[in-house]
Structures are given as structure tokens and as C-alpha cells.
């Protein structure tokens, strides 16, 4: 933990985005996590993605549960809305907020304890409902706040810092999200911002349930030999299927890739994702294919990263429920209450 506030001075040559903000304007308070925590890199990636997308901070709601990961919304977007909810209850708070005001950008920030243990059911239902959100799990495989017990995502056979072998099977949140119908599913690594930043940006632009599992080494309790979530292990076993650039309509970026290696994906809002294929056979539009690909590679001990599945024409919960375009929280009494004449008419129809 650092006692001093991060100095206000910034590099005099920092670029500004369309809103005139530098990336420093998207910061929050200084992190109180352990030095070197992977979560801080995810924080930096969220800051970078929001800066690049020129998002107005007051248009974002960041919602989290309990845990190291759930502390991080305090460290980014200091001028956004935020709700630090009960352990594992981020998805239901987020769903409620989204129902009330569909106009905000929803960032759900959670961890492997918060989403794969106590909040597993909540996680499942928010994905299943297709809530329009970016659900980020900062996945380090241990309970850091309680000194490093295995979490539900720790791989069977991996070793704790004290040398104990994990005998329980692991939950693969990406596999579950695919199965539950998430329309944007990705996995990345906190130590690889060039992959992670565009993934977060694409997820924010996606209309529907976006889920990103970010492997984030716990420096204090899970960065040793025998861990499968350490910097060294993830770097050695990282099998990236693709890399991507996010292109936002107004500002077309000249994409200069060798033909056949790039796949353009246009999302609902007109933004484009340029997918640079690394694995030529991998098709990110094939949900079933993705599931088997993941299972096959997991069996080989490989960690598949990249944009694993996207449905560019996805619909969200509001479409399913056929709600009005106007956010419900701005509907006034005269709209919500049609008056006694209308009630009488309705009652009469039931008689």
C-alpha cells in the first residue's frame, strides 16, 4: 500500500481523446492492493480502453462485490457512478441498475471468489438473461484477502504457496459463460495489455452480455512454481487464438494486414473489430466449436486467450422484455399512470 497520492503532474506530451481528456483523467484513487498485483494492470487496461473509446466518465456505472478484485473500481474512473455491493451480489445489483437506467454503460467487476463461489448463481443468471454489461472477472485462483486458500477456479493439481496440491475440480468461467449464452466471451491475461485493452473496448461496445475472464496473478499467494496462474506459467502456456483492434466508426483506421489473416466483425453500434487470426482454424462465431476447442486445449494444459465467441447481432435483456427506449427511471408519473379512465376501461375488459 502506498501512503502518498499519485502526483497530479502528468507527462506534458500526453495525447488527448475526442473529449479532451488524457488517460490520467480516467484514473481513480491510488491502489491499496499489494505491489505488483495483476488487478492493477486490469485497472490500467480499463482506464486505457475508456480513454481510447472517449467515454464520458459520468456515463459509466461500475459495480462490484467483495474481494481484492472488487476493490479495484475505486482505482479507476473516479468520476463515474459506483456501487460496491454485497459479496457475490454484483450481478443482481447490476441487473437492477440496468433495468432502471438502460442508458448507462455497465462495468461489472468481480473476482473468482465473488463469481465462482458465493456468487456463482448470480453470475449464471445475469449471463443467462443477456444483461447489457461488461462482466470482468479478475481471476487469480486464490482467496487473496484471506491469505491464499484455493478458490473455485484453481486448477486441479496445482500447488498452493505452502506446497499443498489442489484436489478439487476447477470451474472454467469461460466455458460456463459460453454455455449460458453470453454473446461476447473472451479470456486474457493481466500481463498482456496489448491483447486485453482492445478486448475490454470491444466488450464495452458490445450490446449484450459480455464476459471477460482475465487471469491475474496474485503476487502474494499465487505466483510460485506449481501455480497455474503465475506470470511464468501463463506466459509459457498462453495459446492466443487472435489479437484484435477496435475501430470506432467516425475515425476509420487504415488496417494494413496481409489478406486472409484479418476478419472484420461489425457490432450493433457500427464499431468494428479487426480480428487478426493467430490460429487459422479458429472461428469466433461458432459457439459449439469454441466450447470443444476450449475443452481440448484445457486438457493439454493450455490457456486459450483472445476473443473466443462473439455474436454481433446479439440482443439484450431489454429487447427480451420489450421495455421502452426511455430509461425507466426517467419515466414520469403521467407516463406511468394512465389515469382512472384507463383503469376503468381495463377493469371493464376483465369483467
Amino acid at each position, binding site marked *: *500500500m*502506498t*501512503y*502518498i*497520492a*499519485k*502526483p*497530479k*503532474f*502528468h*507527462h*506534458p*506530451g*500526453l495525447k488527448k481523446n475526442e473529449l479532451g481528456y488524457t488517460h*490520467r483523467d480516467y484514473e481513480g484513487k*491510488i*491502489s491499496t492492493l*499489494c*505491489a*505488483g*498485483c*495483476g488487478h*492493477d*494492470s486490469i*485497472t*490500467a487496461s480499463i482506464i486505457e480502453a475508456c480513454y481510447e473509446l472517449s467515454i464520458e466518465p459520468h456515463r459509466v456505472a461500475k459495480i462490484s462485490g467483495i474481494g481484492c478484485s472488487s476493490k479495484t473500481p475505486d482505482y479507476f474512473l473516479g468520476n463515474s457512478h459506483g456501487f460496491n455491493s454485497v459479496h457475490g451480489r454484483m450481478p443482481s445489483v447490476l441487473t437492477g441498475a440496468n433495468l432502471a437506467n438502460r442508458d448507462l454503460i455497465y462495468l461489472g467487476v468481480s473476482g473468482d471468489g465473488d463469481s465462482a463461489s458465493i456468487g456463482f448463481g448470480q453470475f449464471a443468471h445475469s449471463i443467462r438473461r443477456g444483461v447489457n454489461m461488461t462482466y470482468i472477472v479478475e481471476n487469480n485462483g486464490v482467496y487473496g484477502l484471506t491469505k491464499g486458500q484455493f478458490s473455485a477456479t484453481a486448477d486441479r493439481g496445482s500447488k498452493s504457496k505452502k506446497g499443498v496440491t489442489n484436489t478439487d475440480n476447477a470451474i472454467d468461467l469461460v466455458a460456463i459463460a459460453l454455455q449460458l449464452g453470453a454473446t461476447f466471451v473472451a479470456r486474457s491475461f*493481466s*500481463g498482456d*495489455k496489448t491483447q486485453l485493452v482492445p478486448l475490454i473496448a470491444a466488450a464495452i461496445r458490445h450490446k449484450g452480455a459480455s464476459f471477460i475472464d482475465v487471469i491475474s*496473478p496474485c*503476487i502474494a499467494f499465487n*505466483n510460485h512454481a506449481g501455480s497455474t496462474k503465475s*506470470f*511464468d506459467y501463463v*506466459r509459457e502456456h498462453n495459446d492466443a487464438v487472435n489479437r484484435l483492434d477496435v475501430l470506432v466508426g467516425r475515425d476509420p483506421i487504415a488496417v494494413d494486414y496481409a489478406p486472409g489473416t484479418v476478419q472484420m466483425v461489425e457490432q450493433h453500434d457500427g464499431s468494428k473489430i479487426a480480428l487478426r487470426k493467430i490460429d487459422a482454424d479458429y472461428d469466433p462465431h461458432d459457439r459449439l466449436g469454441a466450447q470443444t476447442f476450449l475443452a481440448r486445449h484445457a486438457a493439454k494444459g493450455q490457456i486459450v486467450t483472445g476473443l473466443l465467441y462473439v455474436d454481433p447481432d446479439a440482443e439484450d435483456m431489454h429487447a427480451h422484455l420489450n421495455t421502452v427506449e426511455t430509461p425507466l427511471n426517467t419515466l414520469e408519473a403521467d407516463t406511468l399512470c394512465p389515469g382512472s379512465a384507463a383503469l376503468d376501461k381495463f377493469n371493464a375488459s376483465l369483467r
Partner: protein
Amino acid sequence: MKPTDIAAPDYFHKVVDCQWACPAHTPVPEYIRLIAQGRYSDAYMINWKSNVFPGILGRTCDRPCEPACRRGRVEETPVAICRLKRVAADFKDDITHRLPKPSAKNGKRVAFVGGGPASLTVARDLAPLGYHCTVFDGDPEAGGMMRTQIPKFRLPNSVIDEETGYILDLGVEFKGGHRIESMKALLAEKYDAIFVGSGAPRGRELDIPGRKEAAAHVHIGIDWLSSVSFGHTDKIGKRVVVLGGGNTAMDCCRTARRLGGEDVKVVVRSGFEEMKASPWEKEDAIHEDIPILNFLVPVSFIHDNGKLTGITFQKVKAEYDAKGRRNLVPSGEPDQTIECDDVLVAVGQENAFPWIEQDCGIEFDKWHMPKVDPKTFVSTNPKVFFGGDAAFGPKNIIWAVAQGHDAALSIHKLLSGEDITERPLPEVNVSSQKMGIHEWSYDNDISNDKRFKVPHRDKVIALKDIRTEVELGYDVKLALGEAERCLNCDVQTVFSTSLCIECDACVDICPMDCITFTENGEEADLRQRLKAPSLHPDQDLYVSRDLKTGRVMVKDEDVCLHCGLCAERCPTGAWDMQKYLIEMTQAGSSCPTRSRSAA
């Protein structure tokens, strides 16, 4: 790029921009920290060792350190380094017991021509080593131009007396009122070495029509200032024109304001920006209601029966040729006449050595300057050394001090039978500042304050008495605020490749986006790929050895705040904050030839 060799003494020295820019290489951040701690005497002694005249320089230095100060690249203004130096001098306790004691004489005799900053620096370095030092000066008291040319309202006599006194009290013999008229005669006195620190004593003439006829009211600036300083001149006409745009011109016009000049103007050939005077000296003159008129070239003095009545000027404008050189060409507008009662000519200074005979073994170049080695300061006569303005023409006090230290080292080596061309490396001391997981032995919390103004005496009072000091100096509170603005650039970010696990924590926390992890490449290419644009290519890149992923760590030293957050957020201690104290070797340093080692 090759991995940076941080063991080379210059690498981290360059990061301490102020110290690198200072001719005497005074450890600036070190003494500023001591001021912040209220340890004024300690801060003074660091200065005294390095620049000999902290109280004098704290009022008059040309401050090459301040334009170099990193803070000036981070926000608008640099740290007021110079005025903090004065704080150390103002608030120190009696430090006489900390000065070297006059030591037993070693039998060697050194003569000094001129008692200004260069000579006194050499004498200070040599006297404690046992040399018998004899300083000759035409003026009755020591100090040279510091006493004669700098007005008392900028530099009171008490400060000069104190700091020249510290040197003379080391057993240095001062022969005031004894002008050396013949080098040959001096050589005949069989001194073991002679140091010439006679300055640039001749003010440049302005030979235009009417000069001779109006001579009674046309004065050479430095001679006039000197005459004022000794009390020989105590008034001047009501309307005064000062010709010239350097610091001497600023001293002339402000002095004239105090001796009866009511309508004082400075007239300069060049534009305002190109004037040689320091910006703050121009400001002070303007503050005292002295207009500065630019692009006017004096054509003739107008006089009426030997009485000056005014000066005629040709109007010019600046034109730049293909190479960017400036030429002043007539603008075509009609000439301008400015009426006045007195003129002060401050258009430059020259060296003059009429007292050095041709057969002394001292050769001169085509500009009539002695041939002096720029490192050892020896002339073509191996026993005769030059320093200060006498060696390379008019510069500032701090240059005279720096050259004096080098000349003293040469003289000491010569008289110890050593090769004077062998120059010892500076002494470097490196120590980690880590005291706990996130505790450092320096204040790493960056102050957001803007530069504090030095309080000035009320203008009405200041203009009444020529001996009333205008600047009051910082009080303790202001000094603390200003000291806190220092970024501690001498507390270096030191990177250990083998400890780094490439977690990016330093990249994420760095407030200035100084750090990039990327593939190695040539410098020009790397500068294109930094996290924040490289704005000053003269500022070094710190490049690590290859990391596990095959990348390297590149740090642009340019705007690093030395806040230590990279080291605080580093989980493995790959970054450490280490204080890099560099002291230049002076005559008699304990182990001057041992090469130094660094982290």
C-alpha cells in the same frame, strides 16, 4: 540500444540536471533537502565546499541550474535554486568552527594576481594544504568585481566581508592596494606557482561622433559602478541613458535611479528577448520604472559646448539569413534622438594584460587572450595559471569558481610532482533510500505549489538608499515551501533486470508515463515507441538488459518526478531509489586518483 551503464559517473550525474548544468557541480538537491529539514548550516557547508561563496552567489549567480531544472519541464517554472542558496547563508549558525584550520606551511609559495572569485577559490583550496598564498589586488579589499561592480543594493558589503573573510582567515596573505604592474617582476620573486585571476577589467568603448567632446558626461559602466561602490561618485544627472543590454547595464540603470536619476532609460541594439541580461534582472529594472527601448543603434552623442544634451539613434530591425543568423538592418524610419544629461556605456567588457611582458613565456592568441589549457588552466608557462574572466573572457562568478577549483588541483599536482593532465574522477556515493515497504528517507510526496516569489523591499524605500538591499530573501516558511518543490532528482531510479517479473506495476503507477516495456531497437526507433512521446532527445533513455520475455525496460529520464512510486509498487524490489551523491574532486581530496565504483 545497449544496456545503460549506470556505473559510468556521468550517467546519473546528467539526470541531476541542475548539478550537471552548474559549472561547479554543486549537489543542489542534497542541500535543498537539508534546507527543508532546517539544517541551514549543513546546507551552507555543502555549498561552501563546492561554490565557495554561497551568500554572494545566492544573490548574484547567473543560475545556469535553473533553466536546466527538471521542474521547469514538468510545470511552468523551475525551483528557485539560487534564492534557496541564500536561505542557507541567511539562516545558518556560526560555521567558523567547521572551516578548515590554517595548517602548517609546506614551504611552497603561490602568488595570486587579483583578489576576485577565481583567485580566492584557488587560495581557499590551497591554503589548508599548507601552501603560502599571497593575493595581490589593486583595490584595498578582497572580492574583485563582486565588491566593485555589483551594486550594494543587490549584494551588501557585509556578505562579501564574511565570505572573503572565511578564505583570508585560512592564513591567506592579502596585499590590498598593491597592483601587479609587471609579470616579469612577479616571476623574479620566485613563487612556486602564479595564478592570474585579474578578471576582465576594461569596459568596452563606444567610439561614435561626439564621444570626446561630451566625455565629461559619458561614463564607462563598470568604471562608474566601481567608483560608486567606493563612494567616489554619489550623484548623476536627472535624465540618464544606459547603453547596453547585459547585466552590467541593469546594474547601471538601477544604480542611476538611486543617485538622482529620475528619467532613466536603457537603450539596446537588439530585441528584448535577445538581451544578454538575465530575465529577472530585466524584471527588476522595469519594476523600478526603467523603460527598456529596443532596436536602437547609437549613432552620435549630441553636445552643446562640451555639455551632453542627448544621443541620436538609428532604428533597426532584425532579419534572419538562411542559416538563422540574425542581422540588424536599418528599418528606414527616421532617426530618434533621446535627450539626456548623462550616458552610461555598458556594451561589454574586455581583457587587458598590459602588465604581462612578451618574454615571460606566456603566449597570447590573435585575440590577445593568453593561451590557456581549458582543463588544467595552465598557460604556456608551466608555472603560470589563469582562471575566471582572465582566462576565457567575461563570464559569471560561478564559472570563475569552477575554474578556480580546477586550477587549484593543477597547482597542487604540479607542486606535488604529479602529471597535471591526469584529472581524477569525481567521488560518487550511492545508497538506497529504502527504509520500509513504502518508506523512504526522502520526502517523495510531490508538492504541487507554484514557484514562491522572493519578497522585495518597498520600492519607495529601496530607491532612497543605494545601500539598502532590495531583495529580502525567503523567510523560513517560504523557504520550506520552495524547498519542497525540488524533485530530488539525485535520488535515482535504479533497475535490476534479474529481479523483474514484468508485472507492469511500475508502468501502471508512473504518473509521468516514463516507463515502457518493449522490444529493443535503435535509439531513434525506441523513442518512437515509448508510452509517452519523447520530447527532449538530449535526455537519456535508461535501457535494461534483456528480460525473460525478450523485451527490455526503457525509461525516458526526461520528466521523471523521482516520486519512487515505481519502486513502491514493485513487488520484487527490481526498482530501488538510490541517492547518487557526486562530488567533484578538489585539490587535496583524500583519494583523488582512485576510480570510483557505482551500483
